[in-house]
């Protein structure tokens, strides 16, 4: 038998009788499972998730769910097809043995696989002091259970809500609080909201937006301690500038921690930076050598991106989970040369204070920004980000119809400042420094964190301080 025929037989055999395990039962895991079946995988499929819920959508949690319009358990994701999987929900994966090709579960079960997809995502970074974190009225937001609890607390009309951290989620929560008529203080360590993702120029606009809507925004401060009453309910917060606040609800919105602990000892290039993989979603081992049977998708995947000097990027974006899951699944049941790259143009959105903020590209990769269209005063504008004379990102405030124009420019590495779009130009704006924080300093907002080629070395700059 010729070798090529043997390989073709192997693929057929794998698609018929192979075993695929997906760890992570959220957006990336679900879309991967559907794609596997679409592509003719008829073997055994197991989906493992630590939450007891079937896959649900997270973006609504900080918006329509907190507002009380949509119930926390009413964001279940639509399925595009049946997946005929064995669902192991409510039980976390706790270990991976690559030699015997088994995933270990928290209840001691071992789940064997031929190919594995790692899609365990991230969790919210907890409040740094465990005693204070345990006070009643102190919350984080990542899961639908979190959202249900926080929504219930907001519905009791607390006297003041304190949100620690003004990233996208923190800002969205502050917006909801104001829509509910609640007094809210936002404490942000950086100079303005959203600076980690969008830089200081846009951050100043976001700060004004918050203040215009009645948010008590405190920047350049950290929250040093929370104090509870005799019943163990949080009542006061002490800030680094010496002030104290009377608060009834505190939400720690401090970014995320990647769920890689279960991979310790497995010999993969996994750690606080996520799981390093190639642009075809194949995981790297500890030495930076690509594996053949382990794939990565979603928030946890760190892959080189051609548009950004092949730097390894983590993209905690919704469509990165969708498309990453699909490409990973395709490549799990395909051989060279049919494998596809996952080369997303990063894209995200955020609704806050009645403004639709949308972005493409990787802002923190830039050093300059120029307002290209519309009016900042009217909160309706587009801005482009540049690095060394080429456009690398763009953001719009209530100007989303223009984003495609900038996306196309970014995809072909067009010059910066970009050519005028033809009409609706903001006259005379010159590029200015975009004012991103120094990436070597951990910001508490690791939405997109850049490292060099070697995930085990250069990434170490970002390890958070031990508490």
């Amino acid at each position: 038998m010729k070798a090529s025929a043997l390989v073709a037989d192997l693929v057929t055999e794998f698609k018929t009788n192979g075993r695929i395990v997906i760890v992570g039962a959220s957006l990336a895991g679900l879309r991967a499972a559907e794609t596997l079946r679409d592509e003719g995988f008829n073997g055994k499929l197991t989906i493992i998730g630590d939450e007891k819920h079937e896959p649900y959508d997270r973006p609504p949690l900080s918006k329509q769910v907190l507002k009380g319009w949509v119930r926390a358990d009413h964001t279940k994701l639509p399925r595009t097809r049946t997946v005929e999987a064995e669902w192991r929900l409510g039980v976390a994966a706790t270990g991976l043995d690559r030699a015997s090709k088994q995933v270990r579960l928290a209840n001691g079960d071992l789940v064997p696989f031929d190919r594995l997809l790692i899609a365990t995502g991230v969790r919210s970074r907890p409040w740094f002091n465990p005693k204070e974190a345990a006070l009643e009225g102190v919350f984080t937001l990542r899961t639908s259970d979190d959202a249900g609890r926080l929504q219930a607390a907001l519905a009791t009309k607390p006297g003041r809500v304190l949100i620690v951290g003004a990233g996208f989620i923190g800002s969205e929560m502050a917006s909801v609080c104001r829509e509910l008529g609640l007094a809210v203080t936002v404490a942000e360590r950086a100079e303005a909201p959203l600076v980690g993702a969008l830089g200081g120029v846009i951050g100043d606009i976001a700060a004004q937006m918050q203040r215009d809507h009645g948010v008590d925004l405190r920047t350049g401060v950290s929250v040093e301690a929370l104090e509870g009453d005799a019943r163990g309910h949080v009542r006061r917060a002490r800030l680094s500038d010496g002030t104290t606040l009377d608060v009834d609800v505190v939400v720690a919105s401090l970014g995320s921690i990647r769920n890689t602990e279960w991979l310790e000892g497995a010999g993969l290039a996994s750690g606080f930076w996520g799981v390093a993989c190639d642009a075809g979603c194949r995981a790297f081992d500890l030495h930076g050598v690509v594996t053949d049977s382990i794939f990565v998708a979603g928030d946890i995947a760190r892959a080189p991106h051609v548009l950004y000097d092949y730097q390894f990027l983590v993209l905690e974006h919704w469509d990165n989970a969708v498309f990453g899951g699909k490409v990973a699944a395709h490549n799990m049941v395909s051989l060279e040369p049919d494998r596809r790259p996952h080369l997303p143009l990063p894209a995200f959105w955020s609704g806050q204070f009645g403004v639709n903020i949308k972005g493409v590209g990787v802002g923190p990769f830039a050093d300059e920004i120029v307002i290209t269209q519309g009016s900042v005063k009217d909160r309706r504008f587009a801005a482009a980000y540049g690095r060394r004379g080429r456009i690398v990102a763009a953001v719009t405030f209530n100007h989303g119809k223009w984003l495609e124009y900038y996306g196309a420019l970014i995809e072909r590495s067009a010059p910066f400042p970009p050519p005028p779009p033809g009409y609706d130009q903001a006259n005379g704006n010159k590029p200015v420094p975009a004012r991103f924080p120094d990436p070597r300093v951990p910001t508490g907002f690791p939405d997109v964190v850049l490292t060099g080629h070697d995930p085990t070395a250069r990434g170490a700059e970002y390890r958070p301080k031990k508490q």
Partner: protein
Amino acid sequence: MRIVIDLNRCQGYAQCVPLAPTVLKLNGEEALMYDPNPDDSLRQQVLRAAASCPVQAILVERLDDKGEKP
């Protein structure tokens, strides 16, 4: 029933809003908010809203609920 809207793709045309006003709302000029799991009785409205979207950003689950969901 279940829907999800790709809000990267959504450009805020808001054609969908009047067709299913209890499911889809604009927050401000451009930010679309929606109920991801509306009542089944609204299916016709939601399907019309999805069909009206110029960029086809609304994904409606078409499976019946007898599937193999966990």
